[in-house]
């Protein structure tokens, strides 16, 4: 393929389609996935985050295939430059006189390979983290929790690297656009570039593009279908955790005044102390008889946080120093970190009524699983807009401070 042309202002200029529709769709859908995944990195939106991730992985797989069968300018063969060529091109660009390529230039093509590689690694580490930490996804159970947490750290590190690569990519596009006085971003939208006559143009590939769109919409519809059919009584829960051990006496005695906090939420030593002091339980007398105390204590100690029945159990236990015996879940470091963004206004709203009312936000509080994407912060109808606005504002503020602060994974470990 003739890609390199001499600048010749006298030559006639025509328009030709360089980027076929699948290439453009791939490009902008990848951009959307990347942005969406960034904005949904909180546990709260894990289902949306996962959708963006799976879609990104599918797009990359598609691009690999399209790199073989995708026609002129899209085929890898058309931009398979060695690193010498890429470096040579970069040096020319730094001098301000890079040669013009109709398709991808040598430096740009290395950027593309880098982004495709990073995207793949991010998808793989994401799946490993999901399987190891949460026990969900196709790789569930492959890694244990500490290994899953390591994959999670790698996943975040790679995402930052990719963000950097995107920044360099944008800079390259900008520099090349200015030096060649052409709108490269526009070309990635319309597909057309100004080219010398006789330049090969790409076919539109409409059927493939249509297939991409239909497949994405169908996938999105089936992924989020639960939200369409949920009712206020039966809110949709994207993730259902494994069923945890239960005990009828415990549920009856410990679930009357508040949620029956699952034993996995505190270590055994905490439960033992709490049961010993049952006659002065946060200012209440529980009036439990000795055999009830024994049965409940045994059940709780057998399923306490040390048993790591859930991700929350593991992380809560990790966040408690060996020397401490907290009697409140809400005073463990992990809990505090996870809820630090919730405003006083929300805690005090009548529908929440304090930190202890886990079920006001966690749809699976009763099961004790505390899965991701199973929390909904209730808002009062009349003040919903202000609360939502506040939340968005805080999010934005956090986002801008985020770049200087370490990623929140570090806090997770307490």
């Amino acid at each position, binding site marked *: 393929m003739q890609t390199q042309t001499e600048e010749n202002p006298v030559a006639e200029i025509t328009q030709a389609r360089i980027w076929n529709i699948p290439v453009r769709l791939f490009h902008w859908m990848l951009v959307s996935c990347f942005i969406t995944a960034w904005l949904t990195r909180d546990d709260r939106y894990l289902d949306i985050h996962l959708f963006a991730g799976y879609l990104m992985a599918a797009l990359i797989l598609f691009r690999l295939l399209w790199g073989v069968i995708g026609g002129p300018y899209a085929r890898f063969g058309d931009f398979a430059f060695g690193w010498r060529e890429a470096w040579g091109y970069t040096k020319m660009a730094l001098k301000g006189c890079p040669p013009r390529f109709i398709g991808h230039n040598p430096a740009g093509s290395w950027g593309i390979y880098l982004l495709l590689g990073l995207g793949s690694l991010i998808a793989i580490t994401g799946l490993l983290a999901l399987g190891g930490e949460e026990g969900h996804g196709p790789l569930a159970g492959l890694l244990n929790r500490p290994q899953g947490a390591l994959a999670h750290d790698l996943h975040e590190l790679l995402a930052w690297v990719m963000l950097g690569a995107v920044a360099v990519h944008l800079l390259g596009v900008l520099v090349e656009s200015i030096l060649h006085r052409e709108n490269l971003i526009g070309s990635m939208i319309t597909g057309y570039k100004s080219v010398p006559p006789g330049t090969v143009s790409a076919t539109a590939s409409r059927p493939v593009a249509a297939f991409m769109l239909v497949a994405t919409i169908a996938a999105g519809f089936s992924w989020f279908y639960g939200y369409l059919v949920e009712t206020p009584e039966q809110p949709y829960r994207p993730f259902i955790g494994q069923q945890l051990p239960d005990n009828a006496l415990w549920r009856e005695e410990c679930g009357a*005044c508040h949620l029956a906090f699952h034993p996995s939420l505190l270590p055994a030593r905490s439960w033992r102390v709490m049961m010993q002091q049952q006659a002065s339980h*946060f200012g209440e007398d529980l*009036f439990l008889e000795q055999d009830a105390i024994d049965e409940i204590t045994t059940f709780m100690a057998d399923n306490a946080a040390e048993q790591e029945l859930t991700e929350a159990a593991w992380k809560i236990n990790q966040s408690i120093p060996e020397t401490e015996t907290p009697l409140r879940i809400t005073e463990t470091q992990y809990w505090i970190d996870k809820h630090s963004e919730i405003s006083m206004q929300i805690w005090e709203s009548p529908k929440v009524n304090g930190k202890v009312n886990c079920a006001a936000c966690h749809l699976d509080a009763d099961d004790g699983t505390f899965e991701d994407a199973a929390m909904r912060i209730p808002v009062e109808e009349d003040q919903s807009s202000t609360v939502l606005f506040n939340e968005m504002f805080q999010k934005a503020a956090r986002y801008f401070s985020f770049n200087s602060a370490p990623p929140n994974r570090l806090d997770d470990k307490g």
Partner: protein
Amino acid sequence: MKRKLIVITALMFVMPMVVQADAISQLQADYQAKGAGPFSAAAGEALWNKPFKDAKSGKERRCTTCHTTDLTQAGKHLRTGKVIEPMAPSANPKRLTKIKKIKKWFVRNCKWTLGRECTAQEKGDLLAFLKSL
């Protein structure tokens, strides 16, 4: 002999059900045996709505603090925010069916609300009131 056994076994199954279904009468009979009675739903209602001042916090406490005034509606625990199912047996058939449970909550809730245990008379009145809903 065999027939007697059958009758006894049958009774063993039926008896607890009868007792359970009428936990309220059973409890009221116990209170009467202690010299209380007759019981009045009106007195029970008055006590249910009566404010008591908590010695420590100085705040007013009543049964309705957690159970609300409309007993066919769900209430909410003052300290924890947990939803408490409606108290009226008409709205919640499981209510007031277990003697042990009623006794336990009378102790807890009277101490919390009144600062002392309720008398047999008061408990009988409260049950007469709650039963009538």
